[in-house]
């Protein structure tokens, strides 16, 4: 049973999407299947995580072909953690979208595509083969194209054209990079590549390949010069879609960066410095962008960019403490960003607009709901002891230790800007006096919804807020996970040995 455990999250998502395709026209069935399936998925992911936690890295050889020739799936602690986080946000968004996405959109296969997207995410986290990673990326972007255009509003199509163009470009660059790497080494297995790339003498060529990977994943992760598609597209689709995009899609880029630059291209100071500079500029530009926006969802989109900077900074510093900070931030960020986009969706349903200038008086009307919203907002800022606080300590310590003061300065500056932005959002959306807005006809306002739909919207927010609170108050446990992941990533021989076995590594050295 447990031998194939690594693949269960993948197989479950695939099964769910096929099942949902059979119920194409029966939307009420789809809602139930999606939510129940997502709950099972959380269970399976917890099982996988606890198994990996106790027994270390596990691999499955697809089709029983031995590495480095066949495609393998590797679950180390990082992959298992991310699969678990995907399952948690997947459950939340599944419940949220069954209430908030209108039936006209659900009719065109929203739920099957949503589960295909989760399948792609799980696959990208679990695969140990770089070309297979590309294939999972394709599954992710094709599903996300459908989700982002579903409904076909004008603004949506405009956003999706930008999203489409840059993501296809990124995929092309990624594919080119894989081709160059394959030309250099003759292998696609990531563990095998780690050994072969280290042995190449022409370092210039390796550096160029590394830069190609950096650009490709940089576009996906939305780092400094390559992020323009993100704030232009993330505010257009329904907020449930934006929640899964904001929570997970950019994080796949970050995951790929972490994987490639801790396993294959290691110890190159030139690349590390480039990553650091990109991180610092991302922190600045994302933060400043968020400051001037008026649309609530655009504010959150810029904050995504800003906070990607923290994770990249940890990767650039490349010490065990810094990587632990990156992983902790990743864990915190996935949960909080998913929650925030759902919050913006809820506010949109309540007031009929997302413009900060016109919003207001939320506390007067919904005091309990406002307190609930406060949790993700202030977790994002990282007011101690909420979840955003702890990873920044690790990052700042790592910055001090490596004496890169400018990185520390940028991290503190970005925290300050996030604080200002969130304070502004809080003051004007929750505290400011209510403005009379024109009532929109044919709009499903929150109070007009059935009680079960209301519960389906609020429950995932409570769920994710509790997870956020746990990350904040149970920081010791999360820190334990992050340090273990960081240890595994820095000492990558463990990964290589788990994939290839001892004999092949010795063969290489001879």
């Amino acid at each position: 049973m447990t031998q194939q455990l690594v693949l269960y999250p993948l197989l479950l998502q695939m099964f769910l999407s096929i099942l949902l395709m059979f119920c194409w026209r029966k939307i009420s069935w789809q809602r139930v299947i999606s939510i129940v399936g997502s709950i099972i998925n959380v269970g399976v992911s917890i099982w996988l995580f606890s198994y990996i936690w106790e027994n270390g890295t596990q691999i499955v050889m697809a089709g029983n072909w031995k590495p480095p020739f066949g495609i393998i799936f590797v679950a180390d602690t990082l992959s298992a953690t991310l699969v678990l986080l995907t399952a948690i946000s997947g459950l939340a968004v599944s419940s949220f979208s069954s209430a908030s996405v209108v039936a006209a959109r659900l009719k065109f296969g929203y739920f099957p595509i949503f589960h295909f997207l989760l399948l792609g995410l799980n696959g990208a986290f679990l695969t140990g083969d770089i070309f297979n990673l590309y294939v999972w990326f394709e599954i992710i972007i094709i599903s996300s194209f459908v989700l982002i255009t579903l409904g076909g509003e004008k603004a949506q199509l405009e956003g999706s054209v930008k999203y489409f163009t840059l993501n296809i470009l990124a995929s092309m660059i990624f594919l080119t990079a894989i081709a160059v790497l394959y030309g250099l080494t003759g292998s696609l297995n990531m563990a095998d590549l780690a050994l072969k790339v280290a042995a190449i003498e022409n370092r210039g060529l390796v550096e160029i390949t590394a830069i190609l990977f950096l650009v490709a994943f940089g576009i996906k992760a939305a780092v400094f010069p390559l992020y323009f598609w993100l704030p232009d597209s993330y505010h257009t689709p329904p907020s449930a879609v934006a929640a899964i995009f904001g929570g997970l899609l950019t994080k796949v880029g970050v995951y790929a960066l972490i994987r490639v630059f801790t396993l294959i291209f290691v110890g190159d100071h030139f690349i590390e410095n480039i990553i650091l500079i990109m991180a610092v500029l991302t922190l600045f530009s994302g933060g400043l962008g968020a400051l001037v926006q008026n649309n609530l969802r655009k504010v959150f989109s810029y904050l995504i960019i800003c906070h990607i900077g923290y994770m990249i900074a940890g990767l650039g510093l490349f010490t065990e403490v810094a990587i632990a900070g990156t992983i902790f931030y990743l864990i915190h960020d996935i949960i909080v960003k998913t929650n925030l986009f759902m919050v913006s969706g809820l506010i949109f349903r309540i007031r009929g607009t997302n413009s900060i200038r016109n919003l207001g008086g939320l506390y007067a009307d919904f005091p309990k709901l406002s307190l609930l919203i406060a949790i993700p907002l202030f977790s994002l800022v990282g007011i101690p002891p909420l979840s955003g606080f702890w990873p920044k300590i690790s990052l700042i310590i790592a910055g001090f230790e490596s004496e890169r003061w400018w990185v520390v300065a940028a991290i503190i500056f970005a925290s300050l800007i996030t604080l200002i932005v969130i304070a502004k959002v809080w003051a004007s959306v929750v505290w400011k006096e209510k403005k009379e807005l024109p009532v929109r006809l044919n709009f499903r306002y929150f109070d007009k919804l059935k009680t079960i739909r209301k519960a389906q919207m609020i429950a995932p927010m409570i769920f994710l807020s509790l997870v956020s609170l746990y990350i904040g108050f149970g920081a010791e446990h999360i820190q334990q996970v992050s340090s273990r992941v960081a240890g595994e990533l820095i000492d990558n021989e463990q990964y290589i040995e788990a994939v290839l076995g001892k004999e092949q590594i010795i063969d290489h050295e001879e």
Partner: protein
Amino acid sequence: MKTIILRTASTYLLPVLLLFSIFILLRGHYSPGGGFVGGLIASIAFVLHSFARGLDNTKDLLKIHPGFLMPVGLALAFLAGVTPVIFFDQPYMTGLWYPEHLPVLGSLGTALFFDLGVYLVVVGVTLTIIFTISESA
């Protein structure tokens, strides 16, 4: 397009093309061919039929909506993949083979069912796209 030559020819071409697509599907395990190409040829057969006889006639011929073939094909391919996991505790997608040699088919294994799934998905997708375009045109 509804010339008598095309209409007469399409009556004979449809079964021939379908047979050819199955031939391509079956030879695909070792030689060029396989589910994807086979599926394309099968959908060409139906598209040709719809050109000659009109879309409604082709739909009558098909009985089911081609979109329904997508989940069926996916399910078939998925089952071919998970059978070794469920029954033999082998990794996903491991090829399982029937030990006896069968006439016409050669060796029978899970790979054939996977390819058959691909075949159905390709037919479903292609026909759905083409029918939708020609309906709205």
